[in-house]
């Protein structure tokens, strides 16, 4: 590794990515590259068609070796997705990966100023200059190694939780499976049939329960809830309450499989739980064999895809089809209507199923969100968009297809685990494509409907994916924590204790020296690197590594001193 501190010789390489046309189509990458050549410390500049492609990364590696680079700046997309990749590219070429700086000229430049080439080019130049300024001050860092306790906590004992538990236990990892209810199974307790294979939900549940019971490594705690989580990947201290019992467990990873609630459509379409019921209530009646309706209409998107809940719950179209088909198969003469806005029957099986439903004589009526069906006294009045006609349907049971909504206790869980909540109130994964079953917090994973409305099969494969992800650090036994942490310069610390007071992760602590003065020190494994203590410290004694005052101020200074703006058209 090249131990190039800020005082060492600084040979910066700048790589300007075209990202095909994504960047080069909207700004002058050649001008940006030429400009980069003029910047202090820059000894090598190249343009790449795709920096993240094999040839792009090879070129970076080659330049590090042959041009003797001690800093690498890539001007491309966003560090949020590609920083790990380029850090690795640097490490592979024996350059300390923390001597790499990312400049975002795609998401935050070319794509958002795509109608103003001159302005985008000016901004890209400034961003590159800022990145170079920061790069010059970067310090090498070594990842902090943490041992991983090979055990997992799974919160939620529904289909996802049970699947994940079995999946991990089969790999030999002890699992603590915590379920709030008295029995494992979750939503399977309420469902009738599970499609596309037409299995009884009870059978699936029994099968999964038996599977769980097969593994001694799975400790099942029902009627239990997680009350506190402390620590970090590899070493989470978990407090669990089971009735009056208080338990604590140490685990290396956590999988969240808490599922979702189903919207209860209070005040919608005359919902009363008798004549107007939900799909979930219908399934309960079908399970119990108590359903006695003679004619049925189902209303889709009840409480979904509106101002309050903008998302599509995805599972409801298929749930309606499934239940309608069941009714129709049992009594082919039964009048059955499905009132919908748009039908989402994704995949091969579900679309075929829709065609089958049509053949069986289920009537599909398309309504408009602006003119929803009116339900009163067993009569539905609805304007059919396809026929462009007002229909009056007399049915004795109206079934509302209501969406899955975030569990009522999502906020509490989010605070407990320090994981974020998205726009629609569901828990938010680290990245929809790149890290779909993980949280941004290391060592915490997610699967099933806690993330987004998911059906049974999706929950199962997400659970298996989450288990596979969680197995990686547990299998390796060691993880590297990013050395983006804070450090105290003891010579500047006056021991005021503010850092200790404000840190939620209990990373800083004061020690009393022999002469009676206090001085803070930060436990870097506990430190999450937010840098808040560095900003709060009255005496600037805390350095937030990779985001130091000097680095940030050098970016600020160079941005403002040499700001480029395009000539203004008259």
């Amino acid at each position, binding site marked *: 590794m090249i131990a190039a501190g800020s005082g060492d010789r600084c040979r910066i390489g700048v790589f300007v990515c075209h990202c095909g046309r994504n960047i080069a189509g909207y700004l002058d990458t050649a001008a940006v590259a030429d400009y980069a050549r003029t910047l202090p410390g820059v000894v090598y500049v190249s343009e790449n068609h795709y920096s993240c492609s094999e040839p792009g990364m090879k070129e970076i590696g080659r330049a590090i070796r042959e041009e003797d680079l001690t800093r690498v700046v890539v001007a491309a997309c966003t560090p949020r997705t590609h920083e790990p990749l380029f850090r690795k590219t640097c490490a592979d070429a024996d350059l300390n990966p923390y001597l790499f700086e990312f400049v975002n000229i795609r998401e935050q430049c070319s794509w958002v100023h795509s109608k103003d080439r001159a302005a985008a080019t000016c901004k890209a130049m400034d961003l590159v200059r800022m990145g170079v300024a920061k790069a010059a001050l970067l310090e090498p860092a070594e990842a902090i190694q943490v041992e991983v306790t090979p055990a997992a906590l799974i919160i939620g004992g529904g289909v996802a939780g049970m699947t994940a538990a079995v999946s991990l236990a089969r790999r030999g990892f002890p699992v603590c499976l915590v379920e709030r209810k008295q029995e494992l199974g979750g939503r399977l307790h309420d469902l009738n049939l599970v499609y596309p294979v037409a299995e009884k939900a009870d059978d699936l549940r029994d099968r999964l329960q038996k599977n769980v019971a097969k593994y001694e490594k799975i400790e099942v705690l029902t009627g239990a809830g997680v009350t506190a989580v402390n620590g970090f990947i590899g070493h989470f201290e978990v407090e669990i309450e089971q009735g009056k019992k208080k338990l604590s467990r140490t685990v290396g990873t956590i999988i969240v499989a808490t599922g979702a609630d189903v919207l209860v459509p209070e005040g919608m379409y005359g919902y009363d739980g008798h004549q107007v019921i939900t799909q979930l209530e219908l399934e309960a009646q079908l399970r119990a064999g108590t359903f006695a309706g003679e004619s049925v209409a189902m209303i889709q998107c009840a409480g979904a895809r509106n101002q309050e809940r903008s998302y599509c719950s995805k599972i409801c179209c298929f749930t309606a089809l499934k239940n309608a088909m069941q009714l129709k198969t049992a009594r082919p003469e039964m009048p059955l209507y499905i009132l919908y806005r748009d039908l989402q029957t994704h995949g091969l099986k579900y679309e075929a199923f829709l065609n089958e439903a049509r053949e069986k004589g289920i009537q599909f009526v398309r309504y408009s969100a602006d003119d929803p069906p009116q339900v009163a006294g067993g009569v539905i009045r609805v304007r059919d968009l396809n026929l462009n006609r007002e229909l009056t349907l007399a049915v004795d049971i109206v079934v509302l297809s209501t969406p899955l909504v975030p569990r009522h206790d999502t906020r509490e869980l989010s605070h407990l685990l320090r994981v974020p909540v998205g726009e629609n109130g569901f828990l938010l994964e680290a990245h929809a494509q790149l890290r779909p079953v993980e949280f941004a917090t290391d060592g915490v994973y997610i699967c099933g409907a806690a993330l987004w409305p998911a059906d049974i099969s999706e929950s199962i494969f997400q659970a298996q994916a989450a288990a596979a992800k969680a197995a990686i650090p547990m299998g390796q036994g060691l993880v590297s924590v990013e050395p983006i942490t804070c450090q105290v310069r003891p010579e*500047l610390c*006056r*021991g*005021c*204790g503010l850092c200790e007071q404000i840190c939620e992760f209990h990373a800083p602590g004061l020690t009393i020296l022999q002469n009676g003065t206090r001085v803070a020190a930060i436990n870097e494994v506990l430190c999450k690197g937010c840098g808040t203590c560095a900003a709060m410290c*009255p005496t600037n*004694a805390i350095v937030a590594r990779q985001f130091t005052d000097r680095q940030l101020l050098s970016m600020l200074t160079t941005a403002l001193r040499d700001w480029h703006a395009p000539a203004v058209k008259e």
Partner: protein
Amino acid sequence: MNASVQKALKDSRSFLCLECGRCTAVCPVSGVKQDFSPRRVLSNLLTLNNSDPLNSTSVWECLTCGYCSLVCPTRVDYTGLMRAVRMEAEKPALEELCSHGGVMQTIMQIMVSGNLDQKRMGWIPEEAKYSKTKGEVIYFTGCLPYFDAFFSYIDVDTLQTGRQTLRLLNALGVKPVVLPNERCCGHDLLWSGDLDGFRRLNEINLELFAGTGARILVTSCAECYHIFKYEVPELVGDHGLEVLHISQFLYRHKSSLQSKLRPGEKLRLTYQDPCRLGRQGGVYDEPRDVLTLLPGVELAEMPRHGPQALCCGTSAWMNCTSYSKQIQAERLAEAAGTGAGVLVTACPKCYIHFTCAQHDQPSSSEKQVTVRDMTDVIASSLEERR
């Protein structure tokens, strides 16, 4: 060696240093930091022992309290040397040492702007009598509104000093000019080596002063006092004003003041001589004389007082460290040792620094005294307004 440093060494009589070490013996920093010695810093500068003294932190560690010069047998002006050397020293080393990320210095640097339109008068009570333009006496409020905004989190109320100073002046029949756009006096820029910034601030101030037709400038801050009395005439230009610290102004009108005081309960005070007012301004007696005018007040002196007073531990918003904290703790304990309930200061910096030290999870001795500005103590003895 750079010519300015040569000149500074000469002007400060540094060549006469006998290496006797008396400076180190009295230096508050040396008292808590074993490896700090003014003598050694000076000798490094003289001999270039240290490879680059201008790039080392040692020139910023001095509190510029001036105690060393007082005891120096050859009268080396060490404080003056520091002032000059800092102008030549490397500033990046300083940036890292500025407390609060350099907020205070930056406020001052923003104030050099000619186009500034401050909104700094909001604290003035409705009943206060003052003019924004013309008058015999200017009350220079300094950074009080800024300190108040920034240090609210350690329960510092510097605006009380402003309000009480106005009350005192009004009680003496003075309707002072309070300038809505006055700039910082630049004390901390000067002492952090930014002569340009210091000059610019006071060029603006002098212009503003000239427009008022005033004869006297009153400050409630020891540093503002020293700057306008000594450094501005030396480095910027003549303002033609008589500069008085509020304690001097009150002393001058002490019979009038006395007539306005109401009987008070017994109160034992001790007084902190601010370095710029005491050792460097020679103002020791007036604050004490005014404080003892107050009915019921008994003044208890700390062992180190007057010319021997211990500095409040931090200077020019920089290099605030565990050493500062030790000095502050030592001083607070000394104050508590007098049996006084109140430590009175005549400088908002002392007030802030001591209050801050008390705020840092203090030990019991540090919290025994209440730190108050002298204007607040005195004005609290004024008769209620009728």
